[in-house]
């Protein structure tokens, strides 16, 4: 690191922050773009069903469709709260 870079690095590099945030949101939105229209509805109904048994928040159920050439996989991720009585 050169003498000048030392002073530079003290100031936050906001461009790097911007790049990282963009990479995450753009990847996410690209994923959503290819999803079928019924997924949000499916997600809502799944949440409703699970709530009959376990108290969960909306963002604790993730539904994604992975489309490949010969088959598609519907991936369902449910995060349960830590303590259930």
């Amino acid at each position: 690191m050169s003498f000048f870079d030392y002073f530079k690095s003290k100031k936050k590099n906001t461009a790097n922050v911007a790049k990282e945030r963009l990479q995450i949101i753009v990847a996410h939105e690209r994923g959503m773009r290819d999803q079928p229209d019924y997924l949000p509805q499916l997600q809502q109904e799944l949440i409703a069903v699970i709530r009959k048994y376990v108290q969960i928040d909306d963002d604790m159920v993730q539904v994604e469709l992975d489309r490949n050439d010969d088959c598609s996989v519907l991936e369902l991720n449910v995060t349960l709260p830590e303590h259930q009585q």
Partner: protein
Amino acid sequence: MAKIIVVTSGKGGVGKTTTSASISTGLARRGFKTVVIDFDVGLRNLDLIMNCERRVVYDFVNVIQGEASLNQALIKDKRVETLYILPASQTREKEALTQEGVEKVLNELAETFDYIVCDSPAGIEHGAQMALYYADEAIVVTNPEVSSVRDSDRILGILQSKSRRSEMGLDPVKEHLLLTRYNPDRVDRGEMLSVGDVEEILAIPLLGVIPESQIVLNASNQGLPVILEDDSDAGQAYEDAVGRLLGEEREHRFLTAAKKGFFSRMFKG
């Protein structure tokens, strides 16, 4: 065969109209018969940038609705021989641009023109979708800034799913990234996304980088497409972009900050 090029961005105010004016002027200056169409119905501005605002009699919507012929509505540029402008309507709703109407006008233009440049309105709604629907190529104008990059990616998604080429299963719309209002000083200071960063995120070929430049405002004040300011950095950057659009190899310029003296580096660094 005429080539239809849309200048689009999603986000507003990033430089689409500035770019449409310069790219169309640059193509015409090389002898291609070129028409530039303002799709921003209700917010016409291309006429001002092209310095023909007082010569508008009929507009795009008049032609679509059969109230004027194409020849009556086209305005011949006074500086470049083979350049024509088709202004937007100032009084109608965006919905006046119907898909069939736009197709009819484009087909008629395609009979005599080499290039049709479509200046898209901001957003991703009807007007923007009409501007890009028939495109063969798209210039995605992007500023090195988070919301602009994100919106550009959304527009790319629309080009890939809602254009005529995608719907008909033809070759995809050819995509070009044009990064505008670039400030190498701020990039050096880590305050602005670099051209490499934006290329990496959007992952489409780079057509050019237009520096942030005071010349652009000066040129638009006078109704001069900035590409005609041959001595300026922004003008030359647009000229390079036109060359690349036509398949020429041009090295990218204006990407690095002007060299600074020892003291300014020390205190501003």
